[in-house]
């Protein structure tokens, strides 16, 4: 029973952290139309910054804030050259950025290369509770953080600032013709989204308690996209719904794939599961690109 409960806490923590991660992506793509296919880079930067700083005994809160800041900084590095590019180029450049970052993390010494980093302090560890109880408390912490970010992003989206983002997404020429400096808005949206991903990265580091470059492969970005389009682009509730459904399916299928079935090994079954993600993405794109919560007349995946 307690094992099952602990497992459930893990499931929910995944949902919550991914929701946070996707809220960042949604700010970039859903609201502003920036095709970021390298979102995992910001997750990685946040996670590594936190892991390294905390290993060197930095206060946890400070480390997390630093993770967000460094992620935002990296987004400028990427955005400054890339935001001038067309949609399809931006997609390619962001994917490349994340891949290069991962290769770099894998080959430099301060990240400990492929071995990764572990054994750093985690939040709430001073509480005299069992490991299972800690998992639930950590879940609550993640949920609280995500709720605050959710509310903040909703507030921004409804503000005049958010109106500019929506306008940029719909027709950036018109936004420019009416006097808006769209590049600065795009950079801001990219940086904010990156900071949110960096925050999710910090939480990921604490959640796994051990990170290595393998945790930050391109698949993570595509999972985030799947969650976003599943729930409905441009809607923060869509991120929640998408994450619940996605991890629900993921967990159910991993029940089936945790032991060999018939002639198939677990590796094969794990591969089949990713095939399933791919097929779901394709079917969504053909039959319901606006996602579950989206309406046709709203801003969807395409302009």
């Amino acid at each position, binding site marked *: 029973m307690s094992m099952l409960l602990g497992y459930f806490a893990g499931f929910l923590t995944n949902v919550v952290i991914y929701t946070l991660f996707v809220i960042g992506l949604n700010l970039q793509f859903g609201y502003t139309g920036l095709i970021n296919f390298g979102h995992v880079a910001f997750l990685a930067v946040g996670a590594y910054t936190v892991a390294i700083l905390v290993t060197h005994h930095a206060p946890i809160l400070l480390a997390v804030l630093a993770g967000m800041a460094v992620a935002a900084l990296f987004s400028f590095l990427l955005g400054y050259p890339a935001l001038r590019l067309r949609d399809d180029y931006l997609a390619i450049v962001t994917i490349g950025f994340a891949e*290069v970052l991962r290769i770099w993390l894998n080959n430099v010494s301060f990240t400990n290369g492929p071995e990764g980093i572990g054994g750093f302090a985690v939040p709430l560890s001073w509480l005299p509770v069992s490991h299972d109880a800690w998992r639930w408390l950590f879940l609550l912490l993640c949920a609280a953080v995500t709720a605050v970010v959710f509310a903040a992003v909703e507030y921004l989206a409804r503000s005049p600032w958010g109106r500019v983002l929506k306008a940029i997404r719909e027709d950036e020429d018109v936004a420019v013709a009416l006097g808006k400096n769209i590049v600065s808005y795009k950079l801001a949206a990219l940086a904010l989204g990156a900071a949110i991903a960096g925050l999710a990265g910090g939480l990921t580091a604490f959640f796994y308690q051990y990170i290595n470059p393998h945790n930050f492969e391109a698949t993570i970005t595509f999972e985030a996209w799947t969650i976003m389009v599943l729930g409905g682009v441009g809607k923060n509730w869509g991120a929640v719904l998408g994450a619940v459904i996605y991890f629900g399916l993921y967990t159910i299928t991993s029940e089936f794939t945790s032991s060999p079935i018939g002639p198939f090994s677990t590796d094969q079954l794990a591969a089949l599961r990713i*095939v399933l993600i791919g097929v779901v993405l394709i079917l969504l794109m053909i039959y319901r690109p606006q996602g579950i919560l989206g309406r046709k007349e709203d801003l969807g*995946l395409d302009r």
Partner: protein
Amino acid sequence: MLQFIANGVVVGAVVAVTAVGLTLVYSILKLTNFAHGDMVTFGAYVALLLNLSLGLDIWWTLPPAFLAGALLGVLGDRLIWSRMRRRQAGSVSFIVASIGLALALRNLIVFFFGAQTQHFRLPVEMRQPLGPLPVKLTPDEVHVIVAAVVLFAGVHALLRYTTIGRAMRAMADNPSLSWVSGVDVDRVITWTWILGGGLAAVGGVLYGMIRPIDPNMGWFLLLPMFAAIILGGIGNAYGAAVGGVLIGIIQEASVMFLPAEYRLAVGFLAMIAVLLTYPRGLFGERSLT
């Protein structure tokens, strides 16, 4: 130095063959196909299957690999892309769907063949360096270059001198015009996928002749391919070929200064540099010729 350039030309020849298909699909169908790399992988595994289980000499796997790749391309269009076109999906939907296809293809390959790296069964003497040359090249590597050149000549002839090739160029130049001016659009689309998918698959086989293959190979080829077509001017088939060779050389030459792991990164940075300085590529965006 010369040696790195030689290696670069070999790798570049493979990138070039695959990149031409990518750029054809891009310019004619307006599809940025992130699954293209996995179509390359697919071709390599078709060859592996024929090579290992039927004992077919690797050169004889090229025609069936081409056919299988072409079939995959056409099938993908019937099942996915044509449906999306009918629903007037936008470019982002196409990109996301192509990523879905990439994930599905790659993991189907893992499912059937496993994730480990594998080798074609090649005659040993093909791996011995050729005699008195200033650089070390194996017969296989030379054959790969020759094969790439022959494929190019074929593509060139097709685009230049056949009716369907001319129609493809017309559609790349001005899709809306060709809808009205009596170009058989469906036929052009089918042929684009035959060429694009077929060349991708053949490129995968050529890759397997110089490197071990694994299910991720196409994914890691995708960035150099994009770099090549951007370098050469997107939509420009000859530019893609030259871009492919250039990227190959840049990547291999970087090994002189940086750990080999950074090869991919170097190709990517070269692409960014080109995008920033010549947004239309070294040879300009233009029609397929």
